[in-house]
């Protein structure tokens, strides 16, 4: 690993970083999965409260200021509601079999 290698890596990571930022900017939706099936697409630009059905009953999701949290859910440890507001890290509610993801896993089309 010489100097030019280092510079290349630096340039490369900058490019990737910019690219990532650009993609990140488009992440205005959250996707809610139940047992790996997508059940809801949530617009993060709209502050709102959503209810979905998890394995242990209702899971309440709150959107506020482009971020999302699980407000209420039925589990013994309440791990996913303790996670608080996020807009990039997936929320996994294992006992409820609910996953909330922000990946740009956008639909090609919704009808």
């Amino acid at each position, binding site marked *: 690993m*010489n100097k*030019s*290698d280092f510079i*290349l*890596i630096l340039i*490369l990571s900058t*490019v*990737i970083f910019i*690219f990532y930022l650009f993609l990140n900017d488009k992440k205005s939706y959250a996707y809610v999965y139940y047992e790996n*099936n*997508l*059940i*809801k*697409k*949530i*617009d993060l630009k709209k502050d709102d409260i959503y209810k979905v059905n998890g394995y242990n009953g209702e899971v309440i999701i709150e959107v506020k200021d482009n971020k999302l949290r699980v407000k209420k859910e039925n589990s013994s440890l309440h791990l996913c509601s303790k996670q608080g507001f996020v807009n990039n890290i997936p929320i996994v509610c294992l006992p409820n079999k609910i996953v909330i993801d922000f990946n740009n*896993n*956008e*639909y*090609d*089309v*919704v*009808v």
Partner: protein
Amino acid sequence: MKKIVLLILFIFILSGCNKNDMYDKTLFYMDTAIEIKLYDVDEEHANKALSDIEKMYEKYHKLTDRYNEYEDVINVYYLNNVLKVNEKIEISNELSEIINYGIKMYDETDGYINIAMGNVIDVWKEYREKESGVPNLYELDKPIDISYISLTDNIYLKKKDVKLDLGAYVKGYVTELVGKYLEDENINKYLINAGGNVKLGNKYRLKKYNVGLEEPFNTSNIYKTLSVENVSIVTSGSYQRYYEYDGNIYSHIINPKTLFPDNYTKSVTVITENSAYADIMSTYLFMLPIEDGLKLVNEKEGIEAIWYSDQIYYSDSFDKYEQK
């Protein structure tokens, strides 16, 4: 050093087949937004194709427009409102073909798809726009018999004052033509969404197209995700255009047998190869009791359907389109 160069190359290749070669355009014709996406095509070819496609939608929009007249075009408005009863007129091949398709589909659908329904659809449209009341049978007693229309060798004639309405399939019909055009142009990876009339070409990446089906009356909720390519998908639903009166929902799809809208299902989505046929079948199935529709679809080859009603109903092989 070599590894890094390879890595850079790899990233360029990745980004190359990702976004750079997708071209899209949104058009507005036939009272709807039409979204076109072309993948894996060079810029010049894409621009030419998008402009040709726009011309196609524009041409058919004018030909099938019920509410406006255009210079130098004999269109549906002309046939309905200008042409006199028992007066002959020569129409273009394109209009002739689209009307003939409708006449053929009348037989295919046991008379449920009736392009001569315009008079009755107009009455319901008035009620839908004022969002109150329900027409009585006297108001709906208008000429709608398809036998009042005759079309031979592009010569159109109406024996009574019937009005054509091609709304049940015109979007699907033109979208099918656009798909054929793209395939002739060797653009095989494409997505067309003409106001819910979706036609998809080959997949443009490793995964097939992700298609979400929205819940009727609660459209931010997706109740089913499909993973498909080379199919047409059309949904007919009461939630798309309707009005509510006295606790009942009156959808825009009027059953020619009863002259009233049906309420068997909130929506039905059809998947089949041909977009015009998908459009026809979704409208037809919307007017049938679900068990009759299921039987019909299961007897036919190459067509699947899903109903969103009190529960979700699937045709026998629908699951092959579901995202696993």
